[in-house]
């Protein structure tokens, strides 16, 4: 394939979803049934194209195309595409999952008022995400980084009449925006010290402090986008959006953009910065897992699970094993998308059932569910496969990638105690993962039916089953390597070859994970009653903290500043002027309120001054003469004696 053709096809892949967005926008409402089909078709095309491209370009040397975007004085900023194996993996994952989600949405979103808008933004999101993946420099990457944030905002708030949804959308965008300040500042540092936005070479000329600073700032952005501590509460709120969106954006693709960014700019990170990355990642992982264990909302369990898994990814990058992170990113994308779509299928079916039976309860609360394995066997089957992958059972992709993470973490920790402590948090996270996965499965599918018993539940339509099946297939071991216990298969070796292996860990997990799973099943089967801890359920009260530390002070400041504007600012100028003229006017001033406006101020000031000037204009001619002569005499005295 010639370079030009390659470039063109990459651009085509990126533009196909945009075309889909356009199509969705321009199709008249009378023909809205075309929209889902056309969009899915275009995405299928993109997905196939990228798969083919990935296969043909796999393990080829890195390719870069760049064109001048704009010039600033003597410096030039380019825009272009960077193509290597990482790009190809993400390209395929994004297009494929997006295609799956489109397919699923055909059923899920059927009959929704804003269906066209939905597809349009879904297409736009995919385009932006592809742009992010392909971008060859930090500025361009940032552009798409923000655009995916925007799409996320639009999709979370898709149901505009739902106040919780729009509030969640706003929250997501603003929290991301705060974290993105880090990105901008990193851009500034990098531009200021290297004079370019290049993703590959960072020529800091011995200014390691700035380099670390830039890395940490980028990390801040990653913490926002990938929902790391302390920013992760937006992700659980984001579950207010349609479930396919959660699958695509808040599980498989957008949230991992942060990890992708870390992988891309890995050379920037100094050892110190990497240590911080591990600390953030592993803390998030364990806290997320703990919170997931205490949720009752179906989607929120998955959301906290995502947070926890993202923590693992970040921690993996921090240990230096960015290839491992990419590996887990890939597997996680499949099984988490599968889980979300499974959850979506359940919610969809229950909604449909509620419609026909007029029994209403919260279908996302797992305490209301149960026993669905009989009514929805296919969904149950696919969901279980993905859940197994999440829990890390052998023969599923999750086992291999998590194994790789554990290995790399322990190899990173070496003999240092504090590092080992963080390595053990990863282990704890894995254990917790098993427990919350089982808990979820148990409540939804195994336990005897509670409120769901009142409904006649049907399996989802075929069009929604296809993605489920395909994604569960993608959650099996062969996604990683043909050897079900070896993580360094076709993928890892092409990204970061020669990864260390640790058979002890592999074997240990091989034995312990199934054991723990069984134990978990038993635990949930014979537990007394569902317990939860408030602070875990509420996501560590991060929302309250947020409101206490950020929102409230800002609102207070804004009120203050507006009040300053309306009363104080002009009042200060006013008062200052008054003081210079004389105390007498202050008395007149106190009478009236200090109102807005320099005009008022100057007007009143002038009146004060004027009334002195006028005080000898009372209409009595002798007092006129008196004042004039008086002034004359006084000034003569002044001139002569002073």
């Amino acid at each position: 394939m010639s370079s030009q053709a390659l470039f063109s096809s990459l651009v085509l892949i990126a533009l196909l979803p945009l075309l889909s967005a356009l199509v969705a926008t321009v199709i008249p409402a009378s023909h809205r049934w075309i929209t889902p089909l056309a969009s899915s078709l275009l995405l299928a095309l993109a997905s196939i194209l990228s798969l083919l491209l990935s296969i043909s370009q796999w393990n080829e040397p890195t390719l870069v195309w760049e064109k001048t975007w704009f010039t600033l004085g003597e410096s030039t900023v380019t825009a272009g595409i960077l193509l290597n194996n990482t790009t190809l993996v993400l390209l395929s994952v994004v297009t494929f999952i997006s295609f799956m989600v489109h397919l699923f949405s055909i059923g899920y979103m059927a009959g929704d008022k804003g269906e066209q808008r939905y597809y349009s933004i879904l297409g736009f999101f995919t385009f932006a995400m592809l742009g992010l993946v392909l971008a060859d420099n930090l500025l361009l990457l940032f552009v798409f980084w923000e655009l995916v944030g925007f799409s996320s905002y639009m999709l979370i708030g898709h149901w505009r009449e739902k106040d919780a949804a729009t509030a969640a959308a706003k929250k997501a965008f603003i929290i991301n925006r705060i974290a993105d300040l880090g990105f901008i500042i990193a851009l500034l540092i990098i531009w200021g010290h290297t004079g370019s936005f290049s993703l590959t070479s960072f020529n800091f000329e011995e200014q390691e402090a700035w380099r670390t600073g830039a890395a940490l700032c980028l990390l801040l952005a990653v913490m926002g986008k990938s929902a790391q501590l302390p920013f992760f509460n937006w992700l659980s709120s984001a579950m207010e959006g349609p479930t396919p969106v959660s699958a695509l954006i808040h599980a498989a693709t957008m949230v991992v953009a942060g990890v992708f960014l870390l992988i891309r700019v890995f050379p920037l990170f100094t050892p110190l910065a990497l240590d911080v990355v591990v600390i953030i990642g592993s803390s998030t992982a364990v806290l997320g897992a703990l919170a997931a264990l205490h949720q009752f909302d179906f989607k929120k369990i998955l959301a906290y699970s995502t947070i926890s898994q993202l923590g693992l990814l970040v921690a993996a990058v921090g240990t230096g094993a960015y290839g491992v992170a990419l590996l887990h990113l890939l597997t996680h994308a499949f099984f988490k998308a599968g889980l979300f779509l499974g959850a979506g299928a359940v919610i969809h079916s229950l909604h449909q059932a509620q419609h026909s039976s007029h029994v209403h309860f919260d279908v996302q609360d797992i305490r209301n569910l149960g026993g669905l394995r009989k009514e929805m066997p296919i969904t149950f089957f696919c969901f279980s496969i993905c859940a197994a992958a999440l829990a890390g059972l052998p023969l599923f992709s999750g086992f291999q990638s998590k194994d790789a993470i554990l290995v790399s973490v322990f190899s990173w920790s070496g003999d240092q105690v504090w590092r080992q402590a963080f390595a053990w948090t990863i282990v704890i996270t894995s254990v917790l993962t098993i427990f919350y996965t089982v808990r979820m499965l148990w409540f939804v599918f195994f336990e005897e039916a509670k409120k769901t018993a009142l409904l006649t539940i049907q399996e989802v339509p075929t069009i929604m089953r296809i993605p489920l099946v395909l994604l569960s297939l993608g959650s099996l071991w062969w996604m990683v390597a043909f050897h079900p216990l070896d993580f360094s298969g076709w993928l890892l070796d092409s990204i970061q070859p020669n990864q260390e292996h640790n058979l002890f860990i592999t074997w240990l997990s091989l034995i312990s994970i199934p054991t723990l799973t069984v134990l978990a099943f038993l635990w949930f089967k014979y537990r007394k009653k569902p317990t939860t801890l408030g602070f875990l359920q509420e996501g560590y009260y991060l929302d309250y903290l947020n409101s206490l530390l950020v929102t409230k002070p800002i609102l207070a400041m804004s009120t203050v500043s507006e009040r300053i504007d309306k009363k104080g600012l002009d009042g200060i100028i006013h008062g200052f002027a008054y003081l210079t003229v004389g105390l007498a006017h202050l008395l007149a001033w106190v009478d009236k309120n200090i109102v807005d406006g320099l005009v008022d101020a100057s007007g009143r000031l002038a009146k004060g001054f004027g009334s002195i000037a006028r005080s000898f204009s009372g209409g009595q001619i002798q007092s006129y003469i008196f004042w004039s002569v008086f002034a004359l005499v006084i000034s003569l005295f002044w001139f002569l004696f002073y």
Partner: protein
Amino acid sequence: MTLVAFLFYFFIGTAALSAIVLLFLKNIFHAALALLTCLLSLAALFILLQAEFLAVSQILLYAGGVVILIIFGIMLTTKAGGQAVPITNTGLLPGLAVGAGVFFLLLFFVHKSLFALPSSAQETIVNNNIERIGIEILTDYVLPFELAGVLLLAVLMGAATIAGFKHVKN
């Protein structure tokens, strides 16, 4: 002390005294008389200062013109048949203070300055002042003289117009 010197100080005294009296008189007719006294004393001083023509003019113009006009004015603006309204003061203290200030200013610096006041007046050699004044007025001062004429004409005409306006609406 010669007679001339005596007269000199005498008239200074009368002028000053009548002026001071003027300040405190309550009756406006008496005030006019005090003014007349003052003006006539000044005329006498003019003679002693060898300005005979001025002295004559002073008597004619001031005593004969201004004071008469003023007395007419008093009569016209005082209610007929009634007792003259006593004159009161307004803001006496500040007024006096300003007056005192002016007086102080005018006197304080005389001694300090190099003001070339001879201690006694020089005897003027020229005797015929009146003739000289006549010549000067028609040569050097012909222009002010003529302009004064124009001014007199304008003022008489204007004053007549104003004073003669009868159409008063109340």
